[in-house]
């Protein structure tokens, strides 16, 4: 639908986005409840919650014109409805089908949101499965059900599903939409139809009122000039009535009040402009004098009334505690704060050259500015932090399904789900964690029979634990399985041509599993065993500036620990000088720095290495890599910064160490072009741009530049 006016598409996209986000939240909630059921029958509250999620998705999809998304949700509703009415009995397989339906809806959502492929056959298949359950579900055990005497097929089901109690409410609601509601593609008729479905048979009346009557010459027919007045008798709560408008109306546009049960719905105001008596209420309750009562104006009014729930699907109090903001706006804010920090650093640098006595006030002001800037930075960065439960919540289902396929009994425990992590990291940490959980399930945990034979509980445990330790986020994936098998790892590593020896410590042996192509799996399954897991885990974690550690005890289990920086936007680095240029080396990668003595420098295959505590580390000359003129070309004149990347070490030759500092990471590709060996850039206090080194890429560049190390010789 288009009105041919600029900006209307943007409006529609903005509102669609709200629906997409709400829909995703409903899907997550639905999945969470279904997984929590295991194979148990949902109780009334859980059934209502699943139903509400499906119903909200269906309603929103219908309103926004995503009709394809109503197909599966409609049959889901039918199934849940029959379950609620005890017309059919619950079976554990229903959970699987409902989860599959959730996946299909998520696929449709992704199709609308990102344009990804939507497989119609998957939609058809799950719809058919649901329909079969609706039609042929097992007979329900006998349950005493009190049916309302006048329930009709069209509305009674919904009433019973939505109403948690048998109390009937009478509401009067006016809805004054914003004037571009038609342009936004919102189908008012769908909203009203949904509202009417909440009402008991004959308990709904609707009256449209033109708030102004323009001449036809002045009239923009796509402008909404209508205000609607509804009265409904319903077992639904005020919250549920308001939920109908959750995607389309602000609280100011809705005016809801509950009528006393003995009172007539309010008569149409007689003197409103353009008002004419419209649909009469189908019910004819006895008249009673109007009772003055406070107006409940949208959600705010509910919040004043502390016994009422919040509207728009939120719990009471939540509305005031959170707002939904587009992530690009947050990123923009972070960038602006970054610019402010750079400006502040520049001012500090300039001021450092001024007489502190004469310019005392200026110095004090700049110190205050520095403090305020840092506080502001902390506050702004915290906006991007989201709880890791977003990632953890995907694992119960994964564990359930994989355990079923592997025939293992597994309990998943999660600890520290409220630990917060940068949104950018959250998205990237999900894959490595999936690998680790899959590995723990497939390789780590034993079958119940084996566990019993080894004197363990038949059910294995996988634990996901997150915590914040010393400015970093630590995530542990542990299991109480068999642990890593040292002999097997060494044998496989040797077979694969990976350098190893019996004299290696356990910690060194565990590191072998991060080698590309390494796998100890006896059989390649579709879960794991192809040897493409752990090296990918390591690379992904390192790309985030993180580290991976493994601990294992034979027969007792293994624990993989991932340590990540709090954010990707700010980095703790060491600034170094190479010729006239400055570089930032991430502190997380640095082991130490040293000025080598002549006897530490050796030659291997014609390439210079440095001997540090029995290890020969290749020397990477930054001036050569970045083609910089400098007088420091001999390591004995400069400084070697030793960096470590997952056990692999190298020495970077720089002219001098300058300062340890927090830098704001800027994309260099956005403003210039990609520079090999750099992970971005930052602006220093003197206004100059410094490249932030990508240590992993430097390693790759160094490998290409020099042959494999052979026997070491004394340097010439």
């Amino acid at each position: 639908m288009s009105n041919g006016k600029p900006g209307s598409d943007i409006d529609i996209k903005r509102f669609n986005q709200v629906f997409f986000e709400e829909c995703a939240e409903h899907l997550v909630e639905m999945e969470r409840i279904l997984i929590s059921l295991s194979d148990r029958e949902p109780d009334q509250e859980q059934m209502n919650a699943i139903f509400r999620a499906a119903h909200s998705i269906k309603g929103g999809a219908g309103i926004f014109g995503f009709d394809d998304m109503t197909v599966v949700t409609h049959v889901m509703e039918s199934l849940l409805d029959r379950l609620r009415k005890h017309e059919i009995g619950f079976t554990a397989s229903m959970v699987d089908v409902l989860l599959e339906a959730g996946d299909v809806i998520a696929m449709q959502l992704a199709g609308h949101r990102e344009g990804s492929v939507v497989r119609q056959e998957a939609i058809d298949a799950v719809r058919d499965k649901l329909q079969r359950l609706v039609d042929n579900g097992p007979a329900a055990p006998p349950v005493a059900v009190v049916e309302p005497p006048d329930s009709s097929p069209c509305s009674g089901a919904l009433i019973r599903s939505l109403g948690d109690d048998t109390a009937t409410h009478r509401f009067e609601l006016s809805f004054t939409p914003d004037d571009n509601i038609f342009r936004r593609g919102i189908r008012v008729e769908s909203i009203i139809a949904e509202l009417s479905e909440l009402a008991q048979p004959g308990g709904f009346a609707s009256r449209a009122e033109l708030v102004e009557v323009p001449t036809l010459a002045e009239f923009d027919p796509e402008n909404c000039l209508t205000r609607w007045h509804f009265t409904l008798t319903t077992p639904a709560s005020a919250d549920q009535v308001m939920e109908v408008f959750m995607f389309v109306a602000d609280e100011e546009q809705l005016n809801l009040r509950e009528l006393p049960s003995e009172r007539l719905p309010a008569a149409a105001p007689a003197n409103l402009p353009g008002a004419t008596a419209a649909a009469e209420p189908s019910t004819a309750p006895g008249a009673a004098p109007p009772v003055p009562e406070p107006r409940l104006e949208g959600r705010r009014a509910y919040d004043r009334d502390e016994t009422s729930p919040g509207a728009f699907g939120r719990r009471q109090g939540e509305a005031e505690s959170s707002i939904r903001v587009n992530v690009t706006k947050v990123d923009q804010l972070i960038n602006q704060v970054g610019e402010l920090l750079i400006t502040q650093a520049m001012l500090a640098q300039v001021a450092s050259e001024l007489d502190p006595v004469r310019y005392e006030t200026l110095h004090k002001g700049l110190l205050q500015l520095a403090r305020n800037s840092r506080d502001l930075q902390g506050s702004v960065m915290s906006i991007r932090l989201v709880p890791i439960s977003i990632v953890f919540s995907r694992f119960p289902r994964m564990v359930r399904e994989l355990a079923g396929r592997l025939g293992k009994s597994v309990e998943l425990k999660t600890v520290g789900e409220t630990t917060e992590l940068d949104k950018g990291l959250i998205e990237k940490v999900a894959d490595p964690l999936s690998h680790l959980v899959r590995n723990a399930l497939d390789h780590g945990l034993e079958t119940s029979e084996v566990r019993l034979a080894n004197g363990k509980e038949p059910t294995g445990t996988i634990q996901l634990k997150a915590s914040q330790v010393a400015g970093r986020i630590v995530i542990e994936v542990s299991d109480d399985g068999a642990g890593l098998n040292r002999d097997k790892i060494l044998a496989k590593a040797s077979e694969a041509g990976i350098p190893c020896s019996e004299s290696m410590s356990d910690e060194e042996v565990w590191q072998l599993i991060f080698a590309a192509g390494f796998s100890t799996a006896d059989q390649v399954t579709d879960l794991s065993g192809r040897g493409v897991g752990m090296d990918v885990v390591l690379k992904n974690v390192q790309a985030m500036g993180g580290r991976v550690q493994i601990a294992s005890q034979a027969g007792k289990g293994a624990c993989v620990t991932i340590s990540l920086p709090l954010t990707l936007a700010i980095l703790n680095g060491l600034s170094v000088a190479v010729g006239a240029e400055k570089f930032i080396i991430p502190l997380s990668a640095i082991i130490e720095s040293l000025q080598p003595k002549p006897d530490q420098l050796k030659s291997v295959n014609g390439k210079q290495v440095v001997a540090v505590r029995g290890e020969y580390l290749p020397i990477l000359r930054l001036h050569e890599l970045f083609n910089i003129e400098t007088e420091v070309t001999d390591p004995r004149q400069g400084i070697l910064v030793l960096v470590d990347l997952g056990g692999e070490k190298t020495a970077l030759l720089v002219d001098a160490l300058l300062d340890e500092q927090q830098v704001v990471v800027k994309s260099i590709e956005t403003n210039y072009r990609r520079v090999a060996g750099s992970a971005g850039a930052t602006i220093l206090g003197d206004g100059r741009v410094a490249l932030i080194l990508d240590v992993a890429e430097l390693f790759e560049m160094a490998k290409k530049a020099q042959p494999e190390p052979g026997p070491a010789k004394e340097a010439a």
Partner: protein
Amino acid sequence: MQQTTSTPGKVVLTGAWTMDQAVEGLSFLALALQDQLEATPPPTSTEVDLSQVRELDACGCQLLAVFLENLKGNGILPVPHGLAPALFDTTRLLGFAGLLGAQDGPKET
């Protein structure tokens, strides 16, 4: 496809009256109103035949309601009729039954 034919004292609406056709519909109705106002003598009432309308949504209902109000504002009593039962239910649901005042079935002549 949407059409309006009008003669003094009678306007016949056909087709879909929805958001998608709202701009086009307004043009038709503006001409129909002009026909009524320019008739000599101007009619005191105008029959609005809705029997050939096949689709209505909230935007379309609002447009028709504004048209009828414009007739009234110019001293012409609109007499809408003939809306199909299914569409009449739609207008009732949307709260426009009173504004459109439409009756079931075609008007007996």
